[in-house]
């Protein structure tokens, strides 16, 4: 009744192809932006930032990245953790080599370096597809983690083999290190997330996105219509790795502060991001947000309900979490392969007609 598009006429092709064609969606989007930028920074505290908001923002960037590769271009990747590690170590080397430069530039450069590495590991995709490509990216995952463990240059010959984020700022505001404030780190990550989401949306609704989806849906027909599979696939790997690299850089420098590569960027991380994309919805930017929010919130909510409310032991609740995630993956794959995003779409469709469905 209130959510409808009647009377919302499109008079130009620009307005017809915009991201939120329905007025009320657009209003909701701006409202969310205002709340995220102008309200949350004033009420944020350390617990909220570290337990929920920072991981959500950072994982959402990673999920958008993987979604471009897997959801839009159809190339399955299990190397997300490895590419996040590339972003993290690139950021670390940049931070320690050029201390005066703004963190902003470091993070973006780290993304660029990851994009180059992603293209390199994307080369096998020109020959192999599906499961075999997944195994090839799995090799990338293990190789990259091994590399960062074994070559001391990457961790500046530190005795522990860990990398620690030194204190760095942007525009005079401290972003990394133990003394960074919650609101600054939150805003820093939020800016990157919004930027990544806007760029991802623009790319996927335009020329590049169409060539990715064409490759995903039917590569032979894509080639016959003039899509060069080489540039389409490699550009998907580049853009995807760029986002994943940014998220890895933020994950290390802003969120964790100290990283041991096998622990922070192991194969579990690849699966976690893949689960986010599957549960959230393949081929949907909104789905990346939904999946990241879901998997970040799930352990927090479970702990709240299980440990604090019901008084169960912590380890049982932790195991429950694994069971629930596994179950959800199966349920989603069987019942709704397009994830939360599709559920949301169906709800909107129903709302549009409500209360007169005929």
């Amino acid at each position, binding site marked *: 009744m209130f959510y409808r598009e009647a009377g919302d006429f499109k008079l130009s*092709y620009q307005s017809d192809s915009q991201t939120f064609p329905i007025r009320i969606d657009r209003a909701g989007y701006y409202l969310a932006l205002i709340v995220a930028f102008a309200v949350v920074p004033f009420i944020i505290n350390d617990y909220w930032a570290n337990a929920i908001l920072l991981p959500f923002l950072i994982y959402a960037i990673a999920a958008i990245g993987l979604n471009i590769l897997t959801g839009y271009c159809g190339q399955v990747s299990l190397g997300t953790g490895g590419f996040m590690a590339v972003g993290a170590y690139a950021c670390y080397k940049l931070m320690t080599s050029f201390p005066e430069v703004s963190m902003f530039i470091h993070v973006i450069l780290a993304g660029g370096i990851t994009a180059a590495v992603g293209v390199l590991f994307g080369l096998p995709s020109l020959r192999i597809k599906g499961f075999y490509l997944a195994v090839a990216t799995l090799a990338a995952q293990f190789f990259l983690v091994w590399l960062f463990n074994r070559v001391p240059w990457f961790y500046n010959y530190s005795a522990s083999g860990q990398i620690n984020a030194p204190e760095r700022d942007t525009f005079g505001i401290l972003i990394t290190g133990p003394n960074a404030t919650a609101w600054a780190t939150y805003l820093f990550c939020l800016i990157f997330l919004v930027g990544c989401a806007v760029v991802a949306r623009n790319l996927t609704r335009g*020329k590049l996105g169409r060539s990715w989806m064409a490759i995903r849906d039917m590569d032979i027909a894509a080639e*016959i*219509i*003039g*899509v060069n599979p080489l540039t389409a696939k490699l550009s998907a790997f580049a853009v995807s790795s760029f986002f994943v690299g940014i998220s890895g850089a933020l994950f290390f420098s802003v969120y964790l502060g100290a990283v041991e590569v096998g622990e922070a960027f192991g194969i579990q991380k690849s699966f976690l991001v893949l689960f986010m994309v599957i549960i959230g919805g393949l081929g949907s930017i909104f789905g990346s947000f939904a999946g990241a929010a879901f998997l970040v919130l799930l352990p927090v909510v479970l702990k709240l309900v299980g440990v604090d409310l019901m008084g169960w032991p912590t380890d049982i609740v932790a195991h429950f979490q694994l069971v629930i995630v596994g179950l959800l993956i199966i349920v989603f794959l069987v019942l709704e392969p397009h994830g939360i995003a599709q559920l949301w779409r169906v709800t909107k469709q129903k709302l549009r007609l409500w209360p007169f469905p005929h």
Partner: protein
Amino acid sequence: MLDATEGYTTADGRKIGGVVMEMKNITLRFGGVVAIKDISFDIREGEIRAIIGPNGAGKSSMLNVISGFYIPQEGEVWFRGEKRPPVKPYEVARQGIARTFQNIALFEGMTVLDNVMTGRLTQMKAPIWAQAFWKGQAEREEVENREIAEKVIDFLEIQHIRKTPVSRLPYGLKKRVELARALAAEPKLLLLDEPMAGMNVEEKEDMSRFILDVNDEFGTTIALIEHDMGVVMDLSDRVVVMDYGKKIGDGTPDEVRNNQEVIDAYLGVAHD
């Protein structure tokens, strides 16, 4: 009979121009199997050229040679006065050859509009940073190409399903969307692989009408494979007949219809 540069006039008075595509002594082998044996024919500007023949005659292989899927072992492909080197299918598309498939090859996960817009991909040149921010050249190109896509959508009468995902469409409409995608590329040569396979009479009539209209309105040169003889004889200006990888007839529908070899191939002949 026909000169390379001069055209001819069809029975219904349309002027046919010079040679657009010429196949010279094409031979295509798969291991020991000879799919196409020493075939030559040409396609002229503005004409509707049919390739017919019994099952397994090598018609689809021929279309695949034209669209660059198969590289023939022998022979030359000449397109618009130039000999074509062995090229990849996407390069063929960029030269202005579009095609449809026998069993529909649409992008099922995309809407009809997006499918048609993929036909414009070769014309969109905006750099990635312009696309990333949806500014300048990217936005301009999107609108310009959308206008062309909308013209095609309008022409093929599929406006009502513009925003529908292709996977939800019935077979007949999918065929039409596939034609729209090929047309959106504004091809110089349009290849149709059995555009009427699996359709009922009404859908066939619609499709025939669209093919004739496309040829008429845009002057598009069309080469098509079709099994329905009635349709082929009505639509096409000239017909190539293939059997077992060899060319057994070439000419106007009337000439072909009276060709003894063609009759034998289709009706069968006693071997003694």
